[in-house]
C-alpha cells in the first residue's frame, strides 16, 4: 500500500495507515553501520501483522523506532499519521503513553503492584487512555477486571496473590490486559509467546486477537517463531525487506 507520497512534515495523503515507514536507514551512532534499512513498510488500521525474523534481523530496532524510544535520523517513521522522527523526546513519550500498548517477551509486571494496579498502570501516564477506559467501564478497576476476565484471568484467587507468584502464561495475559487498557490504537508485542508452550501459545494469541478486534487495535507481533505465521492475516519477513541485513548481521 504505497499510495500518495508527499512532502516532509505531512501525512501521506489519504493514508489511513497506522504505520508508514519510508526510506529508513537506522544506525545507533552516526559512524556505526546501518542496522535497519527499509524502503517502505505500511501497516493498515485494524491489521494483525506478523513480523518474522531471526535474531539479528533488526526486530528490536524496529520496535524501538515504532514505540518512539529510538529516533530515525534518516527516513520517515509515521505512526497514526504523526511523524515520530520529527517529535521531541517528551512528545514521543506522551505519544507512546496515549496510543501504544506494549508487551514484552517476559517479566512484564511490576512486582510491587497488584494485578489490577499493573493493568491500570498506563492510565497513570495517559489521561486519554484513562478516559477511554472509563467510557467502557464505570471505574478503572472495573475495566481492568473486565479485560482480565476476557483473558481468563478473573479467578478471585489471583487478585490477592503477588503478581510474581503467577505463572509465566498468566503473567503474559496480565501484560496483554495492560497493553489493551484504554484501547490504544497500536499494540506492539515483542515475542510475548516465546516463554509459553505450544498449546498455551495458540490460546494466548486467540485471546489477543479477539481483544484487539473488540477494541479496534492494530496488532504488530514480532517473533522468530514461524509456526505462528498461519494464525495471522499477513506476514512480513524482516530479513527479506531489511536492506541492512545482507551487508551486516548486527542489530537484532
Amino acid at each position: 500500500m504505497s499510495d500518495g507520497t508527499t512532502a516532509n512534515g505531512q501525512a501521506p495523503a489519504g493514508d489511513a495507515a497506522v504505520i508508514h515507514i519510508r526510506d529508513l536507514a537506522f544506525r545507533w551512532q552516526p559512524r556505526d553501520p546501518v542496522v535497519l534499512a527499509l524502503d517502505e513498510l505500511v501497516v493498515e488500521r485494524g491489521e494483525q501483522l506478523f513480523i518474522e525474523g531471526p535474531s539479528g534481523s533488526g526486530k528490536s530496532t524496529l520496535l524501538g523506532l515504532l514505540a518512539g524510544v529510538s529516533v530515525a535520523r534518516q527516513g520517515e517513521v509515521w505512526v497514526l499519521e504523526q511523524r515520530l522522527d520529527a517529535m521531541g523526546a517528551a512528545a514521543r513519550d506522551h505519544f507512546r503513553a496515549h496510543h501504544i500498548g506494549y508487551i514484552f517477551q517476559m517479566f512484564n509486571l511490576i512486582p510491587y503492584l497488584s494485578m489490577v494496579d499493573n493493568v491500570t498502570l498506563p492510565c497513570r501516564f495517559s489521561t486519554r487512555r484513562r478516559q477511554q477506559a472509563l467510557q467502557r467501564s464505570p471505574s478503572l478497576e472495573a475495566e481492568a477486571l473486565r479485560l482480565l476476565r476476557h483473558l481468563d484471568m478473573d479467578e478471585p484467587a489471583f487478585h490477592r496473590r503477588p503478581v510474581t507468584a503467577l505463572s509465566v502464561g498468566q503473567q503474559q495475559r496480565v501484560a496483554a490486559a495492560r497493553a489493551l487498557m484504554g484501547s490504544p490504537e497500536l499494540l506492539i508485542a515483542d515475542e510475548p509467546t516465546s516463554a509459553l508452550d505450544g498449546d498455551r501459545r495458540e490460546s494466548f494469541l486467540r485471546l489477543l486477537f479477539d481483544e484487539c478486534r473488540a477494541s479496534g487495535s492494530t496488532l504488530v507481533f514480532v517473533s522468530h517463531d514461524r509456526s505462528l505465521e498461519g494464525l495471522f492475516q499477513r506476514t512480513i519477513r524482516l530479513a527479506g525487506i531489511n536492506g541492512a541485513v545482507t551487508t551486516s548481521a548486527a542489530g537484532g
Partner: protein
Amino acid sequence: MAVLGLAWKSLVNRRATAALTVFSIALSVTLLVGVDRLRHEARASFANTISGTDLIVGARSGGIQLLLYSVFRIGSPTNNIAWASYRDLAEHPRVAWTVPISLGDSHRGYRVMGTTTAYFQHYRYGRDRALAFAAGDPFDDLYDAVLGAQVARQLGYRLGDELVVAHGAADVDFTRHEDKPFRVAGILEATGTPVDHTVHVSLQAIEAIHVGWQGGAPMPGFEVPAERLRTMDLTPDEITAVLVGLTSRMAAFQVQRHVNDYPAEPLTAILPGVALSELWNLMAVAENALLVVAAFVVVVGLVGMLTALLASLNERRREMAILRSVGARPVHVFALIMGEAGVLTLSGIGLGLALLYGLVLAARAVMAQHLGLHIAVTAPGGGELVLLGAVAMAGFVVGAIPAYRAYRLSLADGLSIRV
C-alpha cells in the same frame, strides 16, 4: 503525581530494607536534635545555676574567680569580707535581702558552707526554682547540718546521722573538728547545681568549731567544750561572700558601683548571669564539637539510604523499562527514586522526632532527679526546625544521586531490558 503512589508501593514492597533505612535515619535525627536540645538545656540550666540573686559580693578579685568559689565551690577566695562591711551592705536601701556565706571547711571531699536560713529561702536555681527538702528541715540547732542530695546519696547519710567536719579542703586526721560533731537535720532535693555537693551549716557553727584555733590548727590547752560554746557570742568577724537580692533589678548597676567603690575595704560585686555566660563560653568549643559529631551521624544515616537505593537500581532496570513502555518519561523515573528518597527521609525525621519525644518523656523524671536537668516537652523550636530542614535538604540531595543514575539508565536502556 502518579509516580509518588508508585514510589510508596515500591517502598512498601521492600519494607524490611526501607524500615531499616528509616530507622537508621530516625536514630541519627534523634541524636542530632537530642544533642541540640540537651546543649540548650544544659546551657540554660548552667546559666540558671544561681538565679534570683542579683549580685554576688566578695573580696576584690576577678568576676569568674568570685563566681567559681562562691557558687561552684571551686578554688579559694583570696580574702574575706569584714562582718561590718556585710552589715553595712545589708542596710543599703536598695538591698532587699542578703545571704552571707562562709567557706573553708570540708567533709570527706565535699565543701562545708556556713550560711543563714535565709539561704534556703532566697536561693533560686533553674527557672525560679527554690530549694526543697527531701527530708528534714533547715538547721535549727548550732550543730545541725543540711546535706545536698549528692552528699547524702554518695555518703549514705540519713536524718540524725553524725558527721565530723574537717578544716580546709583536705580531709586529714589532725585537722578534724572531732570534738564538735554535726547531726544531719535535713537533706535537700537534687538540683543539678553545686548545692548538691555542699554540706550546709549555720554561720555560728563555722565560728564555733574554730574557737580556740589559730593559723589553721587547734591550740593546745584552748579547747572549748561543745556545750559551753552555746552560751558564747558566735557572730563571725569575717565571711567569704554575700548573695544579694535587690528591691529592683534596675538598681543592680548602682549597687554594683557602690560595692566596687566601697571605701572601707576592696570588694567586688558581680552580676551572676553575666559571669555564668562568660564561663560557659569557655566551654562552647566542646559543646559545638558534640553537635558536629551528631551532624556526621546524620550523614552516615543518609549514606546508608544512598547505598540501599543505589544497590537496588540494577535489579530495577526491568521495572524502569516497563514504566517506559507504558509512557513514563525518564523524568518520571527520576521522580520515582527521588520520591522514595523523600519518603524515607521524611519518615526518618518523623520517627526520629517521635523517638526523641518518647525518650524525653521517659527520661525526664530520672534526669530531673539525678542530674537536676529539667527538660521541657515543647514543640521543636526555631533552631531545631532549621536542623530538621537541613536533614530533609541533605536527604533530597543524597536521593538525587541514585535518581539521576536511574534517569541515565532508563534513557540508555529504553525498552530493551537488560538484567
